């Protein structure tokens, strides 16, 4: 059974600081996704990582994928309050017909 683990589950950081969220998964997969969820809202796609070594950047967020280590990272640079949200990683299931999500990381950026 595919398991996806994120850490930390809760992250409180000061504006301007850098931090990394980690996503580990238990089976071989070349495809990993990052989503953002604002409180009470649905999920919004952030990054699609489709191969080993893939790196995507959007503003202050950068995501990378190491399929050999079964690890993806979401790096936050110089955090701002607007980045406060819950971030999920998700990995394709064994037959590629579903996504299995991590538990999510609640990020709070303090002014």
């Amino acid at each position, binding site marked *: 059974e595919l398991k996806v683990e994120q850490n930390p*589950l809760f992250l409180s950081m000061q504006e301007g600081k850098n931090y990394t969220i980690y996503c580990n998964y238990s089976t071989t997969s070349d*495809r990993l996704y990052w989503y953002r969820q604002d409180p009470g809202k649905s*999920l919004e796609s952030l990054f699609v990582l489709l191969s080993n070594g893939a790196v995507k950047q959007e503003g202050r967020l950068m995501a990378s994928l190491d399929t050999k280590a079964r690890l993806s990272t979401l790096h936050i640079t110089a955090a701002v309050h607007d980045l406060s949200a819950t971030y999920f990683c*998700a990995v394709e299931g064994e037959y*590629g*017909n579903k996504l299995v999500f991590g538990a999510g990381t609640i990020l709070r950026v303090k002014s």
Partner: protein
Amino acid sequence: SQTIHQWPATLVQPVGSPLSLECTVEGTSNPNLYWYRQAAGRGLQLLFYSVGIGQISSEVPQNLSASRPQDRQFILSSKKLLLSDSGFYLCAWSVLPTIAGELFFGEGSRLTVL
């Protein structure tokens, strides 16, 4: 462009009552369709997915069922709700036929069972 609609957005139901949540996708054909639940807390649990009309795969045994009567319509139902059915229900679709690919989520339906 493709859009996904879910309704109702909010629902408060008594224990033992029936449930019907509906999801419709526009602007695409033959989408993969998914129902996820997010209980209080944060994690998303896959409940059902469908790769075609009448084709439903259930991920966990539970009090819920799903149906896909039309290509772009996905319905989540229950005959008798339990307290544990409370949560935020999210419908999603993907464009690729056999690989999940990127999921696009609806706005969600918040269900409270009292």
